[in-house]
């Protein structure tokens, strides 16, 4: 009985099934024909480049994502090396695909925070209770006395896609095991404290302060600030002091006796090692 109903149903379903098969088959043939006649040859290197890229779509290269960067770098090989998460390895493989000399730097780029003031080092004029965002806090003097240092409200932490920067006791601290050098934190910091530095060595010397106040004011506000005394510049010429602030010229960076001396003589111990 059940079997007879089933066969009856099957017979009713047959025309529909045949129609579906017929329509599907005919249209598949039409599509095959269209694909044959209208196919656009794509440069296989676009796909090859895309496969080499890290697929993070972080935008560090200046393009919307890895696929747009792949197209751009094919058109203009001088763009090799823009992929900071991929670093030198990816740059070399891209150069191999495009058969050109690698144009990018062979050293990785990493974020460096030019501040070393933890909560206990800082001075506060008021009690900031506004939006917990550096962009908001930056406009108010109540957030913290120093106008140049890390506000510690974590805009950079939220901008980082790699979980590579954290607030450690009120100070943005880069995790160099994870940093890919995409520069998202540097872009979002309203005080421009974060600099993207080419790490020639695994540990780099850093002046961890951004204060352009005169020495007396800086000393009054912060226990970890650069007072612009210029002792470091006397020891090594990689240090340049201007606007009451010492800076390292990374284009001439090296590590030698002079820089070690500068580090040892710094009265506020603001020259420190960063990296891993």
């Amino acid at each position: 009985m059940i079997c007879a109903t089933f066969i009856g149903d099957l017979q009713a379903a047959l025309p529909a099934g045949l129609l579906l098969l017929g329509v599907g088959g005919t249209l598949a043939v039409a599509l095959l024909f269209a694909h044959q006649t209208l196919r656009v040859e794509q440069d296989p290197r676009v796909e090859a480049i895309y496969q080499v890229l890290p697929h993070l779509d972080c935008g560090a290269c200046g393009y919307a994502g890895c696929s747009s960067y792949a197209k751009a770098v094919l058109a203009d090989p001088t763009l090799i090396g823009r992929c900071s998460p991929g670093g030198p390895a990816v740059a070399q493989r891209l150069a191999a695909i495009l058969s050109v000399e690698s144009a990018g730097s062979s050293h990785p780029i990493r974020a460096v925070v030019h501040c070393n003031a933890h909560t206990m080092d800082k001075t506060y004029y008021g009690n900031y209770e506004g939006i917990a965002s550096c962009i908001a806090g930056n406009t108010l003097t109540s957030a913290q006395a120093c106008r140049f240092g890390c506000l510690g409200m974590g805009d950079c932490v939220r901008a980082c896609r790699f979980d590579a920067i954290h607030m450690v006791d009120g100070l943005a601290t880069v995790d160099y095991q994870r940093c890919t050098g995409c520069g998202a934190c540097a872009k979002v910091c309203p005080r421009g404290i974060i600099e993207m530095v080419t790490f020639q060595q695994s540990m780099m010397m850093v002046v961890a302060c951004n204060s352009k106040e005169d020495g007396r004011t800086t000393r009054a506000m912060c226990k970890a600030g650069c007072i612009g005394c210029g002792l470091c510049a006397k020891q090594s010429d990689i240090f340049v002091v201007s606007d009451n602030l010492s800076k390292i010229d990374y284009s001439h960076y090296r590590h030698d006796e002079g820089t070690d001396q500068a580090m040892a003589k710094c009265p506020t111990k603001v020259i420190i090692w960063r990296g891993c």
Partner: protein
Amino acid sequence: MQDNTSDNLYTKVILNGLWRQNPALRLLIGMCPPLAVTTGVRPALTMGLSVIFVLSCSNLVVSLIRPFLRPHVRIIVFTITIATFVTICDLLLKAYLPAMSEVLGPYVPLIIVNCLIIFRAEACASKSPVLLSVIDALGMGGGFTVALLILASIREVLATGCWAGWQVMPKAFVPWLAMQMPVGAFVTLGLLLGLIAMVSGSKEARHG
């Protein structure tokens, strides 16, 4: 009053698509392209012609196979028919208008799920003879294209001072960039719909 000569019927069907049941401006169906690709007249025209192509082909095929259609498999038949012609249209654009294909991006493949096309397959082509279905497709697709062109003309002229790339506004005209953003699409569409409701409303009031 009823005139049943075929010429008159076809004119009526065309006018139905262009105005009385204009898909984008009166029925408000398939609203994805009118909002997304009306930043310029050229992409709007390409999109309109693509919709006319897909709609005509799918109406033709659906009308041809309508004696064999079974109610429970009709949707899937419509869908594969539409998807086939959209794929062909996408391939055509990629092959002959690569720059325009880049501009339109995902909106050409999205014609597959544009409800205008399945609506006409269901409401017209699966019940009407071949010629009528194709004429209906031309009317509906034409109405859709006209709507796209009106929106695109307003937005492009206000946003860039150009129409289809030709400078039409005086040099002193300050481009109104918001019109190029999604907000421009919504505002223009809203005002246009209001205007149409006002015109048709007053017409009905006169006749009633």
